């Protein structure tokens, strides 16, 4: 920040906010139809967003993962951004154009092997001088498996036991050299992996890259409490956020960990305006851009599980019932209970007189913070001080300029309130997050 409006890092008396940036891309938040929207593939877009995040003194920059292009009705989904470069390679390049920003990649523990992936993350940690983070995901299904040797499908419980064992094996590899530079043999023999030999990389600057876990399920919460440094969640209301926060932090003691050892960072969106009314207007515009008429029908088909292409997006909802067993949508998170969702949507549509598109806009568009920079800053500070979060992963809707206004206008206000750093104090991502370096287990 060129402008240090108040105080110094750490001077604030209240709880400090952690911020991270999610690269916009393959999701329904991203607006590609805006004339300002640029490539989601070119390195320049990644560089612009990462540099902006670093200018805003963010903890880290976050990339999601896709291992198979999503399909709908047996054809590739074409209404949202499609395609992305491979995350770890992008982050290695971003390490060259940033100095302090953490670099987080989402990588599946299902379609990788511990030796290779631990090596790739340890390499990134070395190449970035201690800024690597791994968002461990387990999303696996036969559809995605068709792109991999491993193929197949794991049920939910197996996915987490495999992920936990994967991570434990990775930690063993990260600890396997005697500092500073002597390789030692390792051996791991478990239910899912039987591996042994020598790791090729010395212990990295952070000891272990930061581990992120995303997902709100009970298994996910337990996994995070036992093994993660950051949890990437989605909270609806402040009440839900506080309940989640208390629940997850409450699980830490079982594992001999303290509440500070796990940071809770919900993914959030924001819309800024010079006045509250202007922000609301912009927010409505963005929602309409996110849910095009074609996207509204598609969202409906995902719930109903049947072809609804003959329906008018500006007309009423279908009166037929959903098909709960449908395989219409592939490569997406399944809708839990289609009949209940359909009932809710119908009720809303009838109560407010909403068309299909209006209903989808009302129910699916996620906009967490809408307002002036001042009111958004206040809400962020309040959410953190009320223990609904330790910070936020911001999901901008535009590539690559989507963070510009936040960094320019909101960050200085957070600093003014003593709730946010005015400079990076340490060099590693662990230091930004206030996490301890893992003890070397020789």
């Amino acid at each position, binding site marked *: 920040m060129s402008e240090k409006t108040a105080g110094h890092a750490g001077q604030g008396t209240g709880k400090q906010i952690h911020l991270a940036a999610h690269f916009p891309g393959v999701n329904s938040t991203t607006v*590609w*139809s805006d004339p300002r929207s640029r490539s989601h*593939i*070119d*390195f320049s877009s990644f*560089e612009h967003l990462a540099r902006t995040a670093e200018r805003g003194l963010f903890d880290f920059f976050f990339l999601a993962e*896709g*291992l*198979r*292009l999503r399909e709908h009705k047996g*054809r*590739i989904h*074409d*209404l*949202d*951004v*499609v*395609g*992305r*470069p*491979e995350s*770890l*390679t*992008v982050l*290695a*390049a971003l*390490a*060259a*154009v940033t100095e302090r920003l953490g670099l987080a990649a989402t990588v599946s523990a299902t*379609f*990788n*092997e511990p*030796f*290779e992936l631990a*090596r*790739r993350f340890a*390499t*990134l940690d*070395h*190449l970035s*001088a201690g800024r690597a983070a791994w968002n461990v995901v387990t999303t696996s299904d036969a559809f995605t498996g*068709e*792109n*991999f*040797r*491993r*193929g197949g499908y794991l049920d939910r419980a197996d996915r987490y036991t495999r992920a936990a064992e994967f991570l434990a094996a990775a930690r063993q590899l990260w600890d396997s050299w005697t500092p500073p530079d002597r*390789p030692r043999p390792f051996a791991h023999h478990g239910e899912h*992996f*039987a*591996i*042994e*030999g*020598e790791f*090729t*990389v*010395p212990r990295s600057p952070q000891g272990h890259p930061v581990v992120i876990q995303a997902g709100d399920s009970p298994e996910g919460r337990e996994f995070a409490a036992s093994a993660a440094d950051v949890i990437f969640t989605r909270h609806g209301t402040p009440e839900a956020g506080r309940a989640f926060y208390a629940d997850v932090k409450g699980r830490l003691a079982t594992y001999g960990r303290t509440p500070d050892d796990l940071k809770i960072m919900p993914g959030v969106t924001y819309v800024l305006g010079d006045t509250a009314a202007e922000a609301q207007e912009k927010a409505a515009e963005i929602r309409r851009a996110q849910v*095009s*008429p*074609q996207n509204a029908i598609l969202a409906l088909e995902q719930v109903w599980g049947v072809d609804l292409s003959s329906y008018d997006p500006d007309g009423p909802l279908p009166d037929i019932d959903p098909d709960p067993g449908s395989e219409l949508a592939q490569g997406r998170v399944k809708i839990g209970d289609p009949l209940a969702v359909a009932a809710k949507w119908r009720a809303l549509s009838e109560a407010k007189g909403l068309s299909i598109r209006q209903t989808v806009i009302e129910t699916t568009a996620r906009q967490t913070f809408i307002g002036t920079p001042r009111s958004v800053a206040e809400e962020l500070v309040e959410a953190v001080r009320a223990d609904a979060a330790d910070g936020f992963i911001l999901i901008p809707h535009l590539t690559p300029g989507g963070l510009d206004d936040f960094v320019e206008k909101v960050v200085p206000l957070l600093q003014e309130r003593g709730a946010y750093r005015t400079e990076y104090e340490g060099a590693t991502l662990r230091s930004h997050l206030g996490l301890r370096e893992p003890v070397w287990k020789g």
Partner: protein
Amino acid sequence: MTDHGSGRGPLHIAAAIDLPGTYESGPYAELALLAERGALDFVTLGDSFARPGPDALAVAARIAPATGRVGLVPTVTTTHTEPFHVQAAVATLDWVSRGRAGWTLDVSATEAEARLFGRRGAAPPEELWREAGEVADVAALLWDSWEDDTEIRDVASGRFIDRDKLHHVDFEGRTFSVRGPSIVPRPPQGHPVRVVDATAPPAREAAARHADVALVRVASVRQADAARAELRGLAARSGRDPDVLRVFAALDVDLGAASAPPSRATGEGRCPPPRAPPTGAAPSTWPT
């Protein structure tokens, strides 16, 4: 000197910038910049799960933004890795380097490497090179699984892409299958450059069939000529135009700095090789 006919353009030179025991990026970037100042075609970064060293493709990506023209060619192994991840990473290296990526295919043939993964036992090199060839094939198919003008951003129809320009590859290899398409749009070069070290006999067939550049470690001009003739012959027999295959002789170059170990340079051109590399630093010689 035997006349091999056409296919010889101007001299091409590449340099290996391997730095054992180096895990930070600075020294690699310095060497790549030096190579770039010398107008070399590309630099190579070796890699193996069997010995200490960082992930070479990540190092190549890390030094990409610091360089502007030189090609970046890490070794990527195909035995214990996922073909789908490998092609995505190489395509991404091409994106972050704005069209300067290549990869040196290699196999992991030892029992020790197999135990690092615990998924399959060691196999004979011939079998592993056949699989490497299939990985090269599926990579090319996946790079082509997006046509260049797939992204259309047609606001009127709400379509970001023209999905008719995306293709499943439905590749069935002996040891793996891939449905596709890739998750990464077609890289700037279309196909990043494929390099194979064809010195060992089991690698030669794969080099002749799949490589854009074959490297041969040789001890004399005569050996280089013989290796080149063999590779061109194999390429022709597999139905390729031999002129699309570049053969580089790999040699150790002693730049005269007494304390530094020799670095490896590779080059293709009229034999004998140049007396001095374009860096003009020192004469290069055939090791004897």
